[in-house]
């Protein structure tokens, strides 16, 4: 087990890490269930309860068609919530751990999210 692995191992038992894990996983699972499960439920309703879905709302716009459009709105809202949640509850803790995990190796130090110089990032073309 090298230094980095030992460091990660140590991090995994800290209460802050458990909190980070819970914050990320619980909201991820919940929102996935709402988005994906909601859509699958909508498919099932369309197949097995067509009378409900055929309720006319306005002209030719039925409840089914409106829900289909609503799906895109729900997706946008969930994506927005996810980004805000990650930015406020997950990213700060993760960033803290990242700097801690890297502090051990002054030779490999790099700012989080940035490429270390050894990868010749500047050598790439724009595409």
């Amino acid at each position: 087990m090298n230094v980095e692995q030992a460091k990660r191992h140590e991090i995994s038992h800290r209460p802050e890490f458990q909190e980070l894990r819970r914050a990320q996983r619980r909201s991820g699972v919940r929102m996935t269930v709402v988005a994906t499960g909601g859509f699958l439920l909508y498919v099932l309703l369309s197949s097995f309860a067509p009378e409900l879905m055929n309720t006319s709302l306005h002209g030719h716009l039925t409840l089914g068609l409106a829900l289909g459009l609503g799906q895109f709105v729900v997706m946008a809202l969930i994506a927005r919530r996810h980004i805000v949640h990650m930015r406020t509850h997950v990213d700060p803790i993760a960033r803290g751990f990242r700097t801690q995990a890297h502090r051990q190796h002054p030779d490999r130090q790099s700012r989080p999210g940035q490429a270390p110089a050894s990868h010749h990032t500047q050598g790439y073309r724009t595409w």
Partner: protein
Amino acid sequence: MVTTAAVVVVDGFSLQLTFLLFLSVVVVTLFTALLTAPQRDEISEFYLGNRTMTPLRNGLAMCGDYLSAATLLGSTGLVALTGYDGLLYLGGTAVAWMMVLLLIAEPLRNAGRFTLGDTIALRMPVRQRPVRLALSLCTLAVTTLYLVAQLVGSVALLTQFTGEPSAATRTLCVVVIGTVVIVYAAIGGMPGATFIQIVKAVMLISGVTVTAVMVLHHYHWNIDALLTAAADHSGMGTRFLQPGLRYGASTTSKLDFFSLQLAIVLGLAALPHVMMRLLAPRSTGVLRVSVVWAMGLVSLVCLAAGVLGLGATAVVGRETIARMDHKGDAAVLLLAHALGGGVLTALLSCLAFVTLLAVAAGLTLAAASSVAHDLYGEVIRKGRAKQTEELLVARLAAAVIGVLAMLLALVSWGANTATLAFLAFAIAASALLPTLVYTLFWRRFTATGALLSLCGGLLCSVLLVVFSPVVSSTPASLYPDADFAWFPLQNPGIVSIPAGFLLGWLGTVLGRPEVPDAYDEFEVRALVGAAD
């Protein structure tokens, strides 16, 4: 398959213009692929390309990888022919991104390197080789099926122009497309594939949006007028805007549709070429914004495709579309001809060809990286292969897989593109997804579980399709005269996806446990990010 050989969608002028446009796009992208090809013999550049792209470009590339010609032609055709049911299908295509964004993308990127095999190897270092072997088998099955679907699609598209093509034309079409794809993948690597992906995504998004705006403008931006016209010209009145036109005949077909939706919604996260894209960005922040971009762009294309499908029925009429091609693939081109004449038709058909080409390039690259990295680098050479050596194998593998797909496409040119693509989705969702999800989130998951769910999921979905109406018993089957179809559904997802998850659980519970603590370290890596 071809119904009427005599009728063709486009006239000679459009055909020439399409050819000219397609040729210029191919020439430009080929040159760019050669110019941006990896200069040093580094596998990371070949597999992942430029890792410092902006989120918008990444999102465009993801969107390009995901949306194939099946979405542009097939789904719009489905909307044009079956109204509501077709729209539901488009909804599934967009919703699939939710799971990628919320659960899969970030942990996978943090703990991944080049392939899913690398991520799994972190969890089960001792028995990684058999798992990598099974994994590349599944990856090859998914990519080859999807690749053949793209090449067969090119023949189907050609049929729209020239009527049923002769054997020589067919071969020429598949060989030309296949060769260009091999050049993109083998020489250009990921940088080349990314370039064509972005070109294609920009063309697709702008082409589809402009045509949708033209449709809406035609109906003075009145959605209800569009719906009324579509219902009137569908020949079945308001039933066109109600569920059940395609999948409502019986409980079996309703379950079939649900099964298809399940595979689409869950399969995306496990498609090898999409997974490769998720690994490319260097920081989690960039990845997150990229996936949101991809989601937005895919949703936009899906909404626009819905408008195009309804517009095709409203403007052209369902009767004409069905007469041209009974799957409805001609809908968009007919609509373009009615709205914008020969020029718009040529633009959209060029777009369809470029779309085919780009998706095929991405798939070939994903298959090649799996062969070179998992199969050759880790299983055969046991991790001792030099980078130059692995790179050579990757390039050769791209060529071999391309040629194999061309041969398969020529043999099965009459096959239904959608069926092949749906089977690929079902295999991805039932073999690759359980392993991916368990690896990322389940502490106890072991190599035995991975092997069982990979092989079991693959076998289960393939066998169920073999014994389904796709292969035998109905007039549209591969073997219409034989009858061994005891599985009633055309899409195996509803059975094979739970089976894949169940087998993974069973193998884990029964097999011997992995190295203790490996998961603790893995989890920190997946959530916090590797040192890189």
